[in-house]
């Protein structure tokens, strides 16, 4: 399990990558309105472009076994415990950097068109740049604390952007929900972090630095590692929307669509997968945690996919699809195939961003309509959007030689063949692949094919989006095909991907059982179920058919309603957690606080007052009474002193 020696070099350029978006964000905060909308939007895009250029340059410089570091300053130190604000870039971070800044840049450009007429445009770009800053902190931090700042920061930006249109109260509530559910996960993350530090500190090693942690991880007992990784994984569950904390992500779609694409599909929600990959040296020592991760990932992938089958909101389908795809990533993490997980993260970023931006283009064209029941036949009106959407749909459905095909099949193959994997995991993933193909093509047919079901007023205004919006779509669609070619299986041209990440994840590649023929056969099986999903979707939605209604009324309509209402999870949480919690809070606020807390304070005051009321009677204001007191005291003193002699 020893990682190959990695060379460390200092590169001062690194700090500028997060710093530039932060500066742009601050400039827009203070001078945005003075700069004007065009200039501030341009500044925001230019800042991310600058970061992207640096990321490309770093990527070009970085040798496969190298690590670049940039220590800005020592944040605090106490004895031998030192925490520095410093950045590091290794192979894993380099990949994340390219995803965050590259896709971030495309989505910034897209936002110029999407949000350009909104009165909150400058605020939007402030948040978006701030998000890029925090996300870069998250992926570049060389210790857990810097990662944690980024982790909390992206959560904040997510909250701000979900509630971006705050005039609508439901958006604010969705933002609160995302923030609060994330807090639950973050709490686990923080406990795990503290436990890790104190446990290592008990062994005499006070550090949060990833490289140091990796060096000293063998000092920890297996029980403690299991506990630490479980707590850290709670954080990942919250951030990456896995069962049971996935409920915030579908509601997060209340935010503007570019936000859904950038934060709630391509980057932030993958932070959980990134964190587990970054701490892979801990997780591989906790097989119990890993199998739990795999099970939760598989369960999430499957259940989210089934919910996506019935949703009618174009963005909600994509949201559940994202949850499902994140489940795939955690299957890969759970079987120890970290580089495959990151590979799926990479390809998913392209096709899911493309899908979200495409849906944004559709919503934009229809003047804010999100109900797929009022779409249809948009292929003729929105040709560029249609073709890019089709490509991304093919990619997520796993059509041959698209990026989703390579990454998903890689996960399924690893799930089948790795020692930690199992046939059951593979089977759930395989079934989900079929569901994915079905719900994605259902969406494609409902939105772009058939008759247009929009009313005439909307229909008259349908227009293809401007070039600033379609250009990112085209780039992302190209990525949806070609990004996966880096990680082709051995029977094709082999994976450059695994070679690239191998120094980071060390000799984690366990011998897989099963031959190349098995792999090809499994791939064919996956293709078959994907095709089945497509055919099914075609017959149900690709042409006029009674099939959807018949399916909906199957078994008295019970299963359909169950899926349509997302297994009633929100209602369940509302009943089990939210209501008792608000009830208790209300009791505390309306009964306990005024009666008991205030009562105690007031009782003290009243006691003091009552006591004083008695004693103030001796202050009569009558000088003769005082003089009598004088006399008495004088006589008493006299008696005392005379007695003494």
């Amino acid at each position: 399990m020893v990682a190959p020696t990695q060379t460390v070099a200092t590169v001062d350029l690194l700090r500028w990558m997060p710093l530039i978006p932060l500066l742009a964000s601050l400039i827009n905060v203070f001078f945005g309105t003075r700069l004007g909308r065009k200039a501030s939007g341009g500044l925001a895009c230019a800042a991310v472009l600058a970061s992207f250029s640096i990321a490309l340059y770093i990527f070009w410089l970085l040798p496969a076994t190298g690590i670049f570091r940039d220590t800005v300053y020592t944040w605090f130190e106490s004895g031998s415990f030192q925490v520095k604000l410093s950045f590091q870039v290794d192979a894993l971070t380099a990949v994340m950097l390219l995803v965050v800044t590259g896709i971030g840049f495309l989505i910034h450009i897209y936002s110029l068109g999407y949000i350009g007429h909104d009165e909150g445009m400058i605020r939007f770009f402030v948040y978006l740049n701030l998000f890029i800053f925090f996300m870069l902190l998250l992926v570049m931090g060389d210790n857990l604390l810097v990662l944690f700042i980024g982790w909390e920061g992206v959560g904040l930006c997510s909250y701000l952007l979900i509630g971006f249109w705050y005039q609508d109260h439901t958006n604010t509530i969705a933002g609160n929900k995302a923030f609060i559910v994330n807090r639950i996960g973050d709490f686990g993350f923080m406990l795990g972090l503290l436990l890790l530090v104190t446990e290592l500190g008990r062994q005499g090693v006070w550090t949060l630095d990833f490289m140091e942690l990796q060096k000293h991880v063998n000092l920890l007992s297996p029980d403690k590692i299991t506990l630490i990784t479980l707590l850290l994984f709670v954080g990942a569950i919250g951030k990456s929307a896995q069962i049971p904390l996935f409920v915030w992500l579908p509601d997060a779609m209340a935010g503007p669509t570019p936000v859904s694409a950038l934060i709630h599909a391509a980057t932030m929600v993958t932070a959980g997968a990134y964190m587990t990959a970054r701490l892979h040296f801990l997780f591989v020592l906790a097989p119990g945690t890993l199998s739990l991760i795999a099970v939760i990932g598989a369960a999430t992938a499957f259940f989210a996919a089934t919910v996506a089958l019935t949703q009618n909101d174009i963005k909600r389908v994509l949201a559940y699809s994202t949850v499902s795809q994140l489940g795939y990533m955690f299957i890969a993490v759970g079987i120890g195939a970290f580089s495959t997980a990151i590979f799926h993260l990479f390809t998913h970023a392209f096709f899911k961003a493309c899908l979200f931006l495409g849906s944004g283009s559709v919503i934009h064209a229809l003047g804010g309509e999100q109900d797929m029941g009022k779409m249809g036949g948009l292929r003729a009106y929105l040709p560029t959007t249609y073709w890019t959407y089709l490509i991304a749909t093919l990619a997520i459905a796993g059509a041959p030689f698209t990026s989703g095909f390579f990454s998903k099949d890689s996960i399924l193959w690893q799930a089948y063949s790795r020692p930690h994997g199992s046939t059951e995991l593979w089977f759930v993933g395989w079934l989900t692949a079929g569901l994915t193909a079905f719900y994605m093509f259902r969406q494609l047919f409902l939105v772009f094919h058939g008759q247009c079901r929009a009313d005439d007023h909307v229909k008259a205004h349908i227009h293809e989006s401007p070039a600033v919006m379609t250009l990112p779509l085209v780039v992302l669609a190209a990525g949806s095909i070609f990004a996966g070619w880096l990680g082709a299986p051995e029977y094709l041209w082999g994976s450059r991907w695994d070679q690239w990440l191998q120094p980071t994840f060390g000799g984690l590649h366990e011998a897989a059982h099963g031959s190349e023929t098995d792999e090809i056969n499994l791939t064919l099986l996956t293709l078959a179920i994907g095709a089945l999903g497509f055919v099914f979707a075609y017959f149900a939605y690709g042409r006029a058919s009674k099939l959807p209604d018949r399916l909906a009324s199957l078994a008295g309509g019970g299963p359909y309603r169950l899926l349509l209402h997302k297994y009633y999870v929100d209602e369940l949480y509302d009943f089990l957690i939210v209501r008792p919690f608000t009830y208790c809070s209300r009791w505390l606020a309306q009964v306990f606080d005024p009666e008991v807390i205030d009562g105690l304070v007031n009782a003290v005051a009243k006691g003091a007052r009552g006591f004083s009321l008695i004693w103030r009677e001796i202050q009569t204001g009558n000088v003769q009474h005082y003089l009598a007191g004088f006399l008495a005291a004088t006589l008493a003193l006299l008696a005392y002193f005379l007695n003494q002699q």
Partner: protein
Amino acid sequence: MVPLDHYLILAAVIFAIGVIGVLVRRNLIVVLMSIELMLNAVNLTFIAFSRYLGSMQGQVIVFFVMAVAAAEAVIGLAIVISVFRHRQSLDPQEMQLLKW
């Protein structure tokens, strides 16, 4: 010759009468007069000891006391007059504004 204790007893009696006057009388002028009575009782004690011990110090102090008493009487009467003008009464029981 009158022995010393006669003087002292007389002075103590006058002093006690003064004290009681200060404490119980309902007229400020009488209260002031009672204070004078107390001062003079003390003066008498000083003089008696001065004569008995053959020292002039006691008599010197008495002059001081008389000077202070005169000043005190002037200020006291001035206050009494202004209080009376203000409240048409000299009963110390009614002067109890200085309390909470």
